[in-house]
């Protein structure tokens, strides 16, 4: 059995055959000494560029228009219901009782949790030298930023008087009032806004070389007289040519502007790699801090069900779990509809992410069990009552279904990945990822609503039911997320081309003395 990297190297050197090793489809095999190649089907550097850029340059296919229309239609709902809420008041949501953190904060924690996978992939996996991350990091980072955009909406509008939101910032004002720096809610403001900014910088820095690639390709076509004009696809499937709009001139300008004159110099690459490593180094504690701080919003209160020390690690594990599920939910279909993308995003990548889902799912399951154990072992009757009477026992707890949806989606469904055949099957992976995404939403709903709806005073025990504004605003936030993601898939490089090329076997400057040779 030959090393697949060796086969690729031999083929490039004009020796050997193109016969694929056993790992030719990218799946992992029994022998741990043999790694499946990260890019399959004997692709070269130019193939990577063509696959990634070619898609961004071709006229958008019909399914893209259909998906964008559906997503932006949903986003429009958010654009209607957010002003409606601001004009009318938060009472249009179903939280007009003591369950004053309900769908909005559930949605906030749901989205901010999803927003953890991107930075985890780009930062933590970078420090751990996991080369396979190069196929997924760009789209995961994009997804992170769009999820944080959605997350930012909900706490922003749930405060009621949004025009007072500036008071969260320590700004001198005529009342001489300053924010309370001892409040986890303020920590949260700083953590989430820092996280959003750092993720954006990280994403942009990674894209600079790839934007320069798109710039150069547009320049080349203009110089060769092959510039593309605007071509729209009509719903009938026929293209509509608009000759006077030269797309390549627009691209050369737009991508040129944002690639800020990157010219692939090695001296620049050296500082670039240093900056990348620094960003990875500071983003790693950052990503852990953000969801820890989100969990402090709950953990520092005195409410049974919230007041537990397990929250920070439990929330971080859940965030990684939910984030990877969303990455898979988006990438598995793209792998099918986009030509040749499955050569860059192989079964090996999917399998690795399925394993992460399994591990983090087990961590989350452990945290659920531990919460229960401490509620019993701690001997606090209120804590125990929350877990039995508010959550788990169908005879007592009105929201028992929410708890058991959470358990079955988050703890039971990832157990399928113990079987190799199942974690190598994209359909199964997609279904589990969907289940986990739903389960993680219900986890936040369970934590927030079941603890609040029966707090200390029985006189204020009320059920929370969402109104149609609650539901449609959440659907709208999904629309905003998907609209941004669809635009990203069309206009920006979906793979980190430079990083992907650097981990291909051909990229080694010493192809004949193996193992990297330093």
């Amino acid at each position: 059995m030959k090393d697949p990297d060796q086969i690729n190297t031999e083929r490039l050197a004009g020796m050997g055959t193109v016969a694929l090793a056993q790992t030719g489809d990218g799946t992992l095999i029994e022998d741990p000494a043999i790694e499946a190649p990260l890019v399959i089907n004997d692709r070269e550097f130019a193939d990577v560029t063509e696959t990634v850029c070619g898609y961004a340059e071709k006229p958008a296919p019909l399914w893209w228009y259909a998906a964008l229309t559906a997503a932006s239609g949903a986003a429009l709902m958010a654009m209607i219901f957010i002003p409606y809420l601001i004009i009318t008041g938060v009472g249009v949501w179903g939280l007009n009782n003591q369950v004053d953190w309900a769908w909005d904060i559930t949605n906030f924690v749901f989205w901010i949790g999803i927003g953890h996978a991107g930075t985890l992939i780009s930062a933590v996996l970078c420090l751990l030298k996991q080369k396979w991350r190069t196929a997924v990091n760009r789209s995961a980072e994009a997804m992170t930023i769009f999820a944080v955009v959605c997350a930012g909406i909900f706490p922003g509008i749930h405060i009621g008087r949004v025009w007072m939101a500036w008071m969260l910032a320590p700004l001198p004002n005529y009342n001489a009032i300053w924010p309370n720096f001892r409040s986890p809610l303020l920590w949260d403001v700083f953590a989430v806004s820092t996280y959003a900014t750092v993720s954006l910088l990280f994403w942009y820095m990674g894209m600079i070389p790839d934007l320069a690639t798109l710039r150069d390709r547009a320049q080349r076509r203009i110089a060769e007289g092959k510039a593309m004009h605007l071509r729209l696809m009509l719903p009938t499937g026929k293209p509509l040519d608009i000759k006077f709009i030269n797309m390549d001139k627009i691209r050369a300008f737009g991508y040129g502007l944002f690639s800020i004159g990157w010219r692939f110099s090695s001296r620049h690459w050296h500082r670039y790699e240093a900056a990348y490593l620094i960003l990875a180094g500071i983003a790693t504690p950052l990503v852990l801090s953000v969801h820890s701080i989100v969990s402090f919003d709950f953990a520092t209160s005195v409410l049974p069900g919230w007041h537990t020390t397990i929250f920070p690690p439990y929330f971080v594990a859940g965030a990684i779990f939910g984030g990877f599920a969303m990455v898979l939910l988006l990438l598995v279909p793209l792998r099918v509809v986009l030509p040749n993308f499955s050569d860059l995003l192989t079964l090996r990548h999917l399998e690795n992410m399925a394993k992460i889902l399994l591990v983090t799912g087990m961590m989350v399951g452990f945290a659920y069990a531990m919460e229960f154990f401490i509620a019993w072992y701690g001997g606090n009757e209120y804590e125990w009552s929350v877990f039995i009477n508010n959550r788990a026992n169908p005879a007592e707890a009105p929201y028992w279904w929410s708890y058991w949806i959470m358990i079955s989606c988050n703890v039971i469904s990832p157990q399928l990945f113990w079987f190799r055949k199942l974690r190598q099957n994209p359909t199964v992976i997609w279904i589990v990822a969907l289940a986990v995404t739903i389960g993680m939403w219900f986890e936040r709903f369970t934590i927030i609503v079941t603890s609040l709806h029966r707090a200390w005073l029985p006189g204020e025990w009320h059920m929370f039911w969402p109104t149609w504004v609650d539901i449609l605003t959440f659907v709208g936030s999904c629309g905003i997320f998907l609209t941004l993601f669809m635009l990203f898939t069309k206009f920006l490089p979906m793979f980190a081309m430079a990083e992907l090329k650097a981990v291909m076997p051909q990229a080694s400057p010493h192809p004949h003395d193996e193992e990297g040779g330093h």
Partner: protein
Amino acid sequence: MADTRNKPGSWTRDIAMMMGTYIPGFAKPPARFVTEDGRAVHGVLAEFKTPAEVYHAAEKVRDKGYKRWDLYSPFPIHGIEGAMGFKRTKLPLLVAAIGFTGAGLGLLLQYWVSAVAYPLVVQGKPYGAWEPFVPIMFELGVLPSAFAALFGMLALNGLPRFHHPLLGQKSFWRVSDDRFFICIEAEDTKFDAQEVRTLLESAGSTNVELVEDDA
């Protein structure tokens, strides 16, 4: 081709000249070499097809003692710093300095607000207790560090720079796809177009060309 470079002038003139290379409208330093029809020479550009070829060519150029030259590749080549012989970047020091300053100012801000400007009793804790300030101090250390890492990297690289002689060179546009280049610049004190061309061709370049600065 003659050496037409100016003698060292005043420092204000030097700064104005430096700006000329980055910002349109400023006077540019006169070129060291010009072609027969009077256009400034930027350097000699050599194309290579594989990372291994360009890596070994870089070692040769380094050993010849050239200083003003660079290697261009679609991705960072592992170990190229050694093959080209340049020093580690100072960027980490810059980021650390800015990061710790940010964290320090963050602590100061929180202490001043909570203990001096607006002292509030929260859970009976001392006004100036440092423990609750840790999360925001951390965030305010991370935020400026990230800006320093990105913009410090760009500044040390002399970016943004929207015009550069190489970006106008048609063959060079494949650097972002699958080609590797070495450019030895005319500013190098050892530069001699013919010698450089011979060196790069002997190092295995498939295409060597003169780059003119036509802006």
